[in-house]
């Protein structure tokens, strides 16, 4: 049933100077933790930017929990949050002000914003820095503040593009734990990452994309079975799959 799918993409296309996403079909169930993997320039970020409404596709359809995201982007955006690799922050605002701003954009009431904001900042160890401007934050702190902003309105679909890039081990662990908890609480999480160990340990299902097309998808066990490599790590599988000609993988 389409209503049970968090994300349903059909025939999605986008070309710049060359096709970036070509006739992509992708379905992600509600409550899934999905890892979208692929080599550089495979079309992962372009796909996700079209899903969140930052890029207009050349063709195809996108549904978020049954809502046509292209026809009714406002309804779709209310259910989503986007965390890119470069944090979306305002240098001159403090984390508290930033969260208040996000809460206002998503139409939340001030009391809930205050309460949930404090909870998130405490969880991410930013409460002590609540009255410091983001301009003085380290990359990890900025990424945590951006993540707090994304989670503030309790999105049903959380999309993260390389959220762990440049984070130290401690902060990366905090982020991973938080994402894991969100997924367990029923939030659908889509994540792109080049750190395959993270994907191996965190995600329920993996999709590998290459040249704008979905090469293969499934759980790690399914991918191993399909590749005929029972004990391979995800890294080995990934390298094996992206090296193979497309027709052979399909």
């Amino acid at each position, binding site marked *: 049933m389409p209503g049970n799918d968090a994300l349903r993409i059909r025939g999605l296309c986008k070309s710049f100077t060359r096709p970036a996403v070509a006739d992509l079909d992708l379905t992600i169930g509600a409550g899934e933790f999905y890892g979208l993997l692929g080599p550089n320039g495979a079309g992962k970020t372009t796909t996700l930017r079209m899903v969140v409404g930052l890029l207009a596709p050349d063709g195809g359809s996108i549904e978020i929990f049954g809502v046509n995201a292209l026809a009714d982007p406002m309804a779709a955006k209310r259910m989503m949050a986007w965390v890119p690799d470069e944090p979306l922050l*305002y240098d001159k605002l403090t984390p508290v002000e930033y969260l208040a701003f996000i809460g*206002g954009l998503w139409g939340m009431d001030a009391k809930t914003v205050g309460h949930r904001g404090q909870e998130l900042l405490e969880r991410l160890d930013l409460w002590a820095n609540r009255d410091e401007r983001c301009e003085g934050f380290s990359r990890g702190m900025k990424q945590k503040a951006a993540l707090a902003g994304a989670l503030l309105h309790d999105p049903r679909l959380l999309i993260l593009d390389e959220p762990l890039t440049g984070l130290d081990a401690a902060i990366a662990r905090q982020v991973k734990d938080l994402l894991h908890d969100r997924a367990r609480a029923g939030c659908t999480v889509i994540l792109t990452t080049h750190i395959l160990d993270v994907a191996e340990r965190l995600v329920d299902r993996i999709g590998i994309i290459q040249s704008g097309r979905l090469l293969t998808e499934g759980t790690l066990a399914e991918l191993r079975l399909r590749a005929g490599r029972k004990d391979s790590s995800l890294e080995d599988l990934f390298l094996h799959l992206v090296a193979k000609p497309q027709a052979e993988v399909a």
Partner: protein
Amino acid sequence: MNALAPLWLLLRHEVRLNWRQMTARYSPTLLTIGIICLLVMTHLFALSLPLAAAGLNWITRLDILAAVTSISLFTFMIMVSFALIGAVQTICTRDDMDLLLSSPVPRQAIVVVRVLAIAFGLFSMTALFTMPFANMMAVFGYPRFLLAYVVLACLALTATSAGVLMAQAMFWLLGARRTRLFAQIFAGILGVGFLLLVNMRSILSSAAQNSAMQMLGELLNSAPPPDSWVWLPARAAIGEPPPFIIAVVLCLGLFVATTVGLAKRMIANAVAANASNTVKTRSSRALTAQCGPISLMRRKEWLLIGRDPWLMSQIVMQLLVMVPCIFLIAKSPAGAHNAWLAVVFLTAQLAGMLAWLTVSTEEAPDLLATAPVSRRNVLSAKLQAALIPTALIAALPIATTAYIDLWLGFTILVCSTGGALTVSLLHVCNPTNGKRSDLSWRGNSNKILGLTEGFLGLMWLAFSALMVWLGWYGMPVLLLALPVIYGIVKRRRERPALAPAPAH
């Protein structure tokens, strides 16, 4: 490795970086042609000095010493100001300081090269305008004037030493962050001050000019005799051997003592400046209050601008640059009260700056684009954030002009509103990707846009002049021009960068 090798490497690095910084704004070819043209023009202009010098036998030695002292003092003050800014920037804002400090290059070499680069910058900047006179005098039989090169270099070294000393004192008194802010604002004030000084003749009334000349004459009459120690710097500047040698030794000594003596302190300050980024702020309630998304985004824009004192100082400076033009209009036969028409241009400029800041320097465009807020609301909030402060600031001069002359007030109201609205819409319809720190250079990212902004301001100024001149008959001209203005504002059809195009 030769002990001088790192020094040479760092010097080349500095020269390359400075050249790249200059050519980032203008193409290298254009810049080279510009410098050559300027040199030719200044040399042609400087021709007048040896020609005039031949006929000025009545000038006394005291007159020459007084003139050289005033010119040197003025040049020195300008140099010290630039040196102060340079010293603070060298310490605070150079991103490669950490890299250099972590390298095996001796720290004193880093400081010496950095400070030498400041001195060299001061020397070249001043030499461009002053040395053509020395060259021309040398060509026409006064070779001693070539000593001016050495004098100028000494002046640059002394000014740099003074700037470095002042910067260190400010770091000690104000701390890294405030010093940086002060230097940035000071740079802006200096630019405007220089502009006002150059235009002093246009600004001062003839009576004020006469009294200033009279005062200078009286000052010269009570000046000490030419052999007094007061004139030693001037005597050194005109190349009298003993004062010249003393001055060179003193200047070099001061420079070496400052750079070598303060090297450790400067490096400590550089490290502190790079580390002291944390800014504690009491979180404002402006964004926490319950309000609609438009009001929220508007408040956000004001908060971001309000929290950037340097940005605000830049806005004020950009407006102050127009002051000489206002004085020129006031002194014109059209009458003093027509100078109020400048409000039209200033309003358009202010609205343009604020609209550019809110639209083109949005720090998180993707956040706004992924939020459940329509693009129309985002742009509307940004337009309001630019226009409301402009209206509040313009209200007082408009009310004053209306009190002086009702028609003049009405004209300025109509044309200021038109100017502010069209220039703001120009930025909303044609956003660029800029940084807040580029406010003064915003036209460089899109030259046509920059020119159009200025053109629109001038067009509305012209309309206001026409309405003052023709009265009600000026209105049809304005109405006829509205479609043209609309065409100019909407000239591009691309979607603004801060919000995505609607999906199809």
